[in-house]
Every structure is written in C-alpha cells, then in structure tokens.
C-alpha cells in the first residue's frame, strides 16, 4: 500500500482538485486517480519528509482558531490603515522568537499561518538554533509575542505533528 500510494494525503487532494475542475463522472474519477498515483510516485523520488499526523482531532480546532484570528487581524489592520501611517497609536517593528517546533511540515504550516495573518510577516528562520524573526505591524496589540505564539499555535501544532 505504501509503495503503491506513497503520499495518500497528497494523492487524495489531487483527485479532489481534478474532480472540481471537471464535471464529475466515472471516467474523470479514474483518470484523476491515475494522475494522482503517478504524481505520488514522482514526489516520492524527491524524498520530502512525509507528514505524520498524530492527532486528527486537533486539526478542526486549529482551523477554526486560524480563521477567527485572521478575521480579527483583518479588522485591526483595516483600522490602522484608515487611521493613517503617522498616527501615534500603533508602532511597527521586529520581534525575535524562539521556537521549540522542529518538524518540517509543522514549521511550514506555522509559516503559512503567520504570513496569512495581516498583522504579522515571517521574515527569517534559523533552522539550527530555532530562532524566528517576525515583523509585526502593531507591536502594542500584544504584550508578549513569544508566549502568544507558543500558547496559541505552537502547542497545537506540536500536538498534531510531534
């Protein structure tokens, strides 16, 4: 099974996208499955770290948290933009954090979450020491970014992946 379909998650996603782009029919299901399995073999040659998801139950919680946080920070950034850049009620700057997360896929997911949130931008990650440099549009919105990231996302991601 693992030799025939080395990346079941990716193959399933590919079949799903194939069926979305075409009208559903049995022929397209077969064709999409064939392409997905072929793509799985090709990806296997590249030897990426296969994601190991330990706890599926935490994924909906993470998704809901991310959707809610992005909505909140959209509103916050819209407020800042309408106030104007010279307004003294916000201050942008850099933040350095220390991450305990080491799993490649979990780090990629954290990068996606932090970049997709309008208030924070992921700039640089030192893989050896685990230090992360962020740029934050409003430094004052939180007191302690280190504990915020750790409690909010990092524990949940470690629960899922490690």
């Amino acid at each position, binding site marked *: 099974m693992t030799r025939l379909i080395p990346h079941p998650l990716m193959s399933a996603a590919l079949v799903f996208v194939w069926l*979305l*782009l075409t009208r559903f029919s049995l022929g397209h299901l077969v064709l999409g499955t064939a392409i997905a399995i072929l793509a799985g073999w090709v990806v296997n040659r590249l030897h990426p770290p296969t994601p190991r998801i330990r706890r599926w139950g935490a994924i909906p919680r993470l998704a809901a948290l991310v959707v809610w946080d992005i909505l909140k920070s959209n509103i916050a950034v819209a407020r800042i*933009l309408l106030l104007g850049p010279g307004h003294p009620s916000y201050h942008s*700057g*850099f933040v350095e954090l220390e991450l305990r997360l080491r799993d490649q896929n979990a780090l990629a997911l954290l990068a*996606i979450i932090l*970049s997709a949130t309008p208030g924070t931008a992921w700039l*640089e990650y030192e893989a*050896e020491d685990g230090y992360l440099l962020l740029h934050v549009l409003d430094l004052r919105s939180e007191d302690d970014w280190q504990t915020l990231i750790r409690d909010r996302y990092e524990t949940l991601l470690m629960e899922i992946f490690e």
Partner: protein
Amino acid sequence: MRHLEQLPPVAAIIIALFVVLGSTLALLGSIGLFRLKSFYQRLHAPTMAYSYGTLLIVVGSMAMFSLIEKRPVLHELVIGIFMLITPPVTLLMLGRAALRRDRDTKLGHDELVPPRIPPGERGKKGPRDVSGYGEGMLDKSVLPHTKAETRELRDPDDLHDPTD
C-alpha cells in the same frame, strides 16, 4: 444581466454583501500600499486582499453560480485553495529578499534591520529584543528603548549609518 433575475432576493442580498466586503478589503490592501511608509509595513497590506478579500469573493461567486445552475458549482474552490497556499510562499520569499538587501551595505538601506547572528555564535542568551529596529515612529513612553540604546544594539560591522 438577465441571469441574475433567477436568484431569490435574500440570496442576492447576502451575495452582494460578500462581494462588496471582499472588494473593499482588496481596495484597503492597495490603500495600505499607498499609505504605509516602509517596505516591511507595506508587506502586511496586500495580505488582506489575499486572505479574506479572496475568500469572500470566491464564496460569493460559488454561491451565485450554484444557485443559478441549480447544481453545486465548486470549481472556484480551486482558486481558494491556491490562494491559501501560494501567497505565504511569495510573501516569505519577498521578506527574506528584502532582509538580505537591507543587510547588504553595498546597496545602501533606508531601513535598519536586525543583524543576522550566525548559528552557533548566539550562545544561551535567548531571543534578542529587536523592537528598536525599523524606521520606527518610536514612542518612548510605551517601549523601553530610547534612541541611544538602540544605537548600541547595532553591530557597527554589519550596518553603517545611512547618514554618514
């Protein structure tokens, strides 16, 4: 626009709300590009168009075509999934490129960025406090740094003052 008459009014109002909100968010992202002062601040602005701007318009479009054709039309989801994965990649690469260029003294920089500490040289100090960097409108009453302390933080070999 005769095809729009088939929609029930409630659905039309909800779809209109989604479309208006989504495009307003995308416009705000552009206004952010116009108004914010430094590159790192501007990096945050288009994310609004990428996240909820796209989401709202895609959901509105999906709902409209599904109601008109009376079958689930889900192919806009592909754009949604695509816009979920790719913008973080581009923003991340752009941010890193800007950081590298700002650290390169040959190019000159209009922004002070925290210098890179090579792995192994950091010791056990833990994360630095780098909130004094950036072009900053530093309000001294709120953040602990004064301008003099910020200058001490900088490594003279890595950065040179743009004024000299």
